[in-house]
């Protein structure tokens, strides 16, 4: 059984959209979903498949973008879509890509590049599914994109904290009380940096925010074009979970970047490239104080000055102390030596 010579591991070539007016008009995520007013993640879904085009298979792990999107008989997905288990976005991408590859290689299916995208929420991706995503990012012979839509809580199940919930936030698992003002005191995982640093053969990792829609779509297109497994982390303001007026979703996305809390960057073949307003910060534009972002959200309404100061100091540390600012939290060796000699 020789492998057929017609098979190739090629990807679709998806050139970047040069401006919003050049974006294709076709939609592949349309009516039928029932997400909340102001839901940024629904916009991410729409932009994600707009960017990928029709020859795409989407796998969605359990979460808002499953439960709220795919009520039986009212699917918004124009492209083929399938549910996968909460911790299985990595496995879903890998299995789908491997199935297609096997069938095309053996001449059992017409050979063509089909985009495979698996998405997960922060709970499914950064908590439960981290191991499977990590494994998939080492399988360089299978083309796929894993997109993490991060609304910073288990928003589908009643807003419980996840490993991606910001320090101190009020969730149904971390309600502020008279004795304990802050129940949740863990700092958020650095997903994109961790996955880029930990998977040297993964050619493309990026962070995006749908407040910058064209750039977000172009990162998706780059991830699908470059080949092998790729990863995108999208920060998605969530009116219900973050407790703010739904009209502020876009603005909060911008503020997350302008305060430096969420950096926009891509890591392509090991090269870190900042973009958008994050690039301006790297080039010297001052970051906005984190309080401008935090105090617009009810989940931080219980914060006192001490909490705001702690949060600001942690964000300052990301930018001032990290070896690659806001991307890789290692310290320079000379700084370590200095710390040792000071003792």
């Amino acid at each position, binding site marked *: *059984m*020789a*492998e057929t010579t017609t098979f190739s591991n090629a990807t679709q070539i998806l050139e970047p959209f040069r401006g919003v007016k050049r974006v294709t008009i076709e939609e592949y995520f349309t009516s039928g979903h029932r997400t909340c007013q102001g839901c940024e993640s629904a916009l991410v879904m729409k932009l994600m498949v707009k960017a990928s085009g*029709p*020859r*795409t*298979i989407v*796998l969605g792990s359990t979460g808002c973008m*499953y*439960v709220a999107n*795919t*009520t*039986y*008989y009212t*699917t918004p*997905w*124009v*492209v*083929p*879509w*399938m*549910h*996968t*288990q909460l*911790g*299985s976005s*990595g*496995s*879903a991408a*890998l*299995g*789908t890509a*491997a*199935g*297609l*590859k*096997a*069938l095309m*290689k*053996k001449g*059992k*299916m017409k050979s063509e590049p*089909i985009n495979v995208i698996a998405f997960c929420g922060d709970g499914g991706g950064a908590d439960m599914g981290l*191991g*499977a995503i*990590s*494994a998939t990012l080492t*399988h360089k012979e299978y083309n796929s994109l894993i997109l993490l839509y991060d609304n910073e809580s288990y928003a589908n199940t009643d807003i419980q904290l996840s490993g991606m919930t910001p320090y101190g936030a009020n969730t149904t698992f971390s309600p502020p009380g008279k004795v304990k003002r802050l129940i949740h005191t863990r700092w958020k995982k650095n997903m994109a940096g961790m996955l880029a640093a930990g998977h040297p053969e993964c050619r493309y990792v990026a962070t995006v925010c749908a407040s910058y829609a064209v750039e977000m779509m172009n990162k998706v297109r780059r991830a699908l074009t470059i080949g092998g497994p790729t990863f995108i982390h999208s920060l998605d303001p969530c009116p219900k979970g973050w407790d703010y007026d739904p009209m502020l979703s876009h603005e909060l996305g911008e503020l997350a970047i302008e305060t430096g809390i969420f950096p926009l960057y891509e890591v392509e073949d090991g090269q870190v490239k900042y973009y958008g307003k994050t690039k301006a910060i790297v080039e010297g534009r001052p970051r906005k104080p984190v309080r401008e972002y935090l105090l617009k959200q009810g989940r931080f309404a219980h914060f006192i000055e001490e909490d705001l100061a702690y949060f600001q100091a942690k964000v300052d540390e990301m930018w001032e102390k990290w070896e690659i600012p806001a991307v890789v939290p290692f310290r320079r060796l000379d700084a370590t030596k200095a710390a040792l000699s000071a003792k």
Partner: protein
Amino acid sequence: MAVVTPAAPAATEEDKELLISGSEAVAESLTLADIDVVTAYPIRPYDTVMQAIAKKISGGQLVAEYIVAEGEHSQFEIVKHASTVGARVFCGSSGVGWMYAMECLVVTPPLRVPMVALVGNRALDDPGAFGVEHNDALVVRDVGWLLCWIDTSQEALDTTLIAYRVAEDRRVFLPLAISADGAFLTHSQALTMVPPKSKVDRFLPRYDRGDLLLHPDNPITVAPQANEDWVIEIRRQNNEAMARAVTVIEEAYADFRRVFGRGPENPWFEEYMTDDADVILVGMGTISLPIKVAIRELRAKGKKVGLVRLRWFRPFPTEKLVAALSKAKALGIIDRDYSFGSPFGSGVVANEIRAALYNADRRPPLLSFICGLGGREVTLEDVYKAVDLCTAAAAAGKSDAKTHWLGVRE
């Protein structure tokens, strides 16, 4: 010097005979079935099949995507998704590894994914134990997996081919687990007839997912939120598929016998010296070996004892089994599993058979035995003891309502 061109070997219809283990026999069938995607993760004893497949792939006999997963959960999810885009898939596990995949195991039947898996039966740690118990595979008995137990390398090879034929039949489209006793079958070699590909191709059609194929040319949405609006109808569809599997299994075995010239007439269970038996013992898997030896010894002494070795547990062959068992004067069900707190503290098989017999016109006294747990050897003495108790129950015309543990320190 004349150039001698060797003649192309004539396509042969001959089987070849190999000395192989149960796991290696399964790997021979997977090669013949030309599987497309296979996922491996190490746990004894099932993993010998993955070692055998890896050699088939590195040796060029099989072209397939061979993925070593990072855990059983992913192992089963990967092939589940590969199957939905049309790939013929294989997977497997043992003991707590199978349990680690449990979430994926329960979603596979309602997705109508005809995955075939090998369960190398193993005790559920803790405490650590590599030996056979059937509780691992039995946990999926209620959720839509087809479940069968095999006894020999030949049966391993034949059943694997039958498994794809049954699972991938559009009337069924359910996952199928082949249970093989750890060590006793997975690691034990026996002479096995391996058929040529040409015969297999006449028996096993291509996997065709039809209108359920996940592909841009067939842009369906799979497994949406159905909730109370639809879930009960979907459950009933699963149940109907399981019921249809009865016919499909019988067709497959009949066709197997036609193409390969071997295989049982009765797919559901093997009957050994049951025609005139007063006492019939029932068990699954390789436990048949000590039981058959004991039966021959007992027959030499004039005791009429027989064995029913159950092959198929799901679908459960209720009517046929009742017909075969109700003619005996006493039944002894030997479970290599347990079900703590169950009726009479019996094993799973004993209580299934009790339930199956409930509406029968004739219900022989039924004794329940548990033995061989954790891979402990089942001895002839264990079997003799069971037969003695059954003989007494036959004479009394009734059985005690308890479960006897055999070969256990008191």
